[in-house]
């Protein structure tokens, strides 16, 4: 499993400059927002968490269509699935490695973007924390979409359509938790705990469902 | 006709009627096209795998 994890990590950071593309895409979204909204720093500070979360959500969908595709094409996916390991565990490891390669850089890039958006240090910290907890859930939901669209020639676009509506709860609780940390009357802990619960729930559900689909498609 | 809100009531009913009609007509056109296609294929001598006799055919 450890070997698989490292292999995955290497693979997904190589694909199209993986890490860098995601962060660059994230930067583009964040940079484009002020052009649309205007340079009002107060307003930007207020909507900053929402902008960062939306950007991270879109950016983490970016490489998902390649999660299983390449390995399906060269046949190594079939070999992996034929082994003793349950497919759900396989998907879990793959998705987690994908998150470390693509999701974690987004989290680490938040401080820079937060300064551009005039956010307070507490806000930036809260955004990093919620993104670190919340983006894995997006990856795990995305794994189901990736497994389902793996055989399609232009699956990436369809994957986004299928996955985005399902990520609504994560977005809501992520941004709510940040607002809770920044604004005084609103609580931070309850939405944050729900976010944690969602991530745990989807890591189980997503792995099981995606593993099942992959197993079936190789039969 | 229905007081001050006619401008909202009439479009609602029209839209509902339109959607319902489109659903039904579209499905019926599809059905007709498929029946003709099957008839055409059968005429050219193609049979279904599971079709041993034509007795249970209908339509």
């Amino acid at each position, binding site marked *: 499993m450890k070997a698989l994890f490292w292999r995955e990590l290497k693979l997904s950071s190589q694909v199209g400059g993986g890490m860098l593309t995601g962060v660059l895409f994230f930067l583009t979204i964040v940079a484009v927002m002020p052009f649309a909204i205007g340079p009002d720093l107060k307003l930007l500070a207020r909507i900053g968490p929402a902008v960062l979360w939306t950007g991270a959500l879109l950016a983490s969908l970016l490489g998902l269509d390649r999660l299983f595709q390449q390995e399906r094409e060269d046949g190594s996916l079939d070999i992996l699935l034929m082994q003793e390991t349950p497919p759900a565990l396989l998907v879990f490891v793959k998705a987690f490695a994908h998150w470390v390669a693509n999701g974690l850089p987004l989290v680490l890039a938040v401080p820079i973007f937060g300064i551009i958006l005039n956010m307070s240090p507490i806000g930036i910290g809260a955004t990093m924390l919620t993104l670190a907890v919340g983006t894995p859930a997006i990856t795990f939901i995305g794994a189901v979409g990736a497994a389902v669209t793996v055989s399609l020639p232009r699956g990436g676009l369809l994957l986004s359509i299928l996955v985005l509506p399902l990520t609504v709860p994560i977005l809501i609780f992520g941004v*709510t938790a940040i607002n809770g940390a920044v604004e005084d009357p*609103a609580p931070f802990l309850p939405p944050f705990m729900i976010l944690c619960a969602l991530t745990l729930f989807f890591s189980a*559900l*997503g792995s099981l469902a995606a593993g*099942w689909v992959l197993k079936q498609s190789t039969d | 006709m229905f*007081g001050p809100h006619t401008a909202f009531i009439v479009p609602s009913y029209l839209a509902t009627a339109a959607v319902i009609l489109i659903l*039904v007509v579209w499905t019926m056109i599809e059905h007709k096209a*498929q029946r003709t296609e099957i008839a055409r*294929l059968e005429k050219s001598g193609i049979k279904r795998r599971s079709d041993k006799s034509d007795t*249970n055919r209908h339509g």
Partner: protein
Amino acid sequence: MSETIIKQNTSIWDYANPTRFLGIADRIIPWLGGATILCIGLGLYLGFSAPEDYQQGSTVLIMFIHVPASWVAMMSYSVMTMSAIGTLVWRHPLADISLRAAAPIGAAFTFLGLLTGALWGKPMWGTYWVWDARLTSFLVLLIIYLGIIALAKAIEEPTTAARSLAIITLVGSINIPIIKFSVDWWNTLHQPASVSRLAKPAMDAVFLYPLLTMAVGFSLFFFTVHLMKMRNEILKRRIRTMKMTAARQAERG
């Protein structure tokens, strides 16, 4: 398709045979259609002869189509969820056909629910759209429906498509309550009590009867079109196999 059916002595499995299903559908559809027309006609008559509501005025007429449409939109997703379970657990060919057939109808009614809701909201709340919990989760439901339809159109091979559709539908069905609940939560924190002034008094029978009649009518309509679409889907697959056999014969001879 039909080889995968497990033959059992119980009669319920006999109806699963696509050919038998076609025969039964052909017989039932005209009756269901007739009942639908009668029911909606009666509902319309009852609705238009109802007096104006003291609070909502004549816009109560919109309720008679808005509420049933929204109910059917949700019912359609539960039919799809049950079909998805049917596909995954019993590998039942008709379950997949039912899922595919229900998706466009569900999407159409979700759209209708949103549209009539907007037209009802303008005179009642003064705006076509609010980011209220119910509206938002319905919008998400519409997007989920459209995604499922897009997926169904994208995958050529029927058995792969069946499993993929079933999984996505099922994941969606688990997620819809979560979306609903999270949107509720989100709304309570951000805009307290701006829309909830739509008071819901115990409904008078004058309004309840037309509403229920319309709801039954819309449900009957759903089942009629659902059956018709299932019939189409079976025929479509039959054409597909026939063409494939023809191609194979042409290759051989």
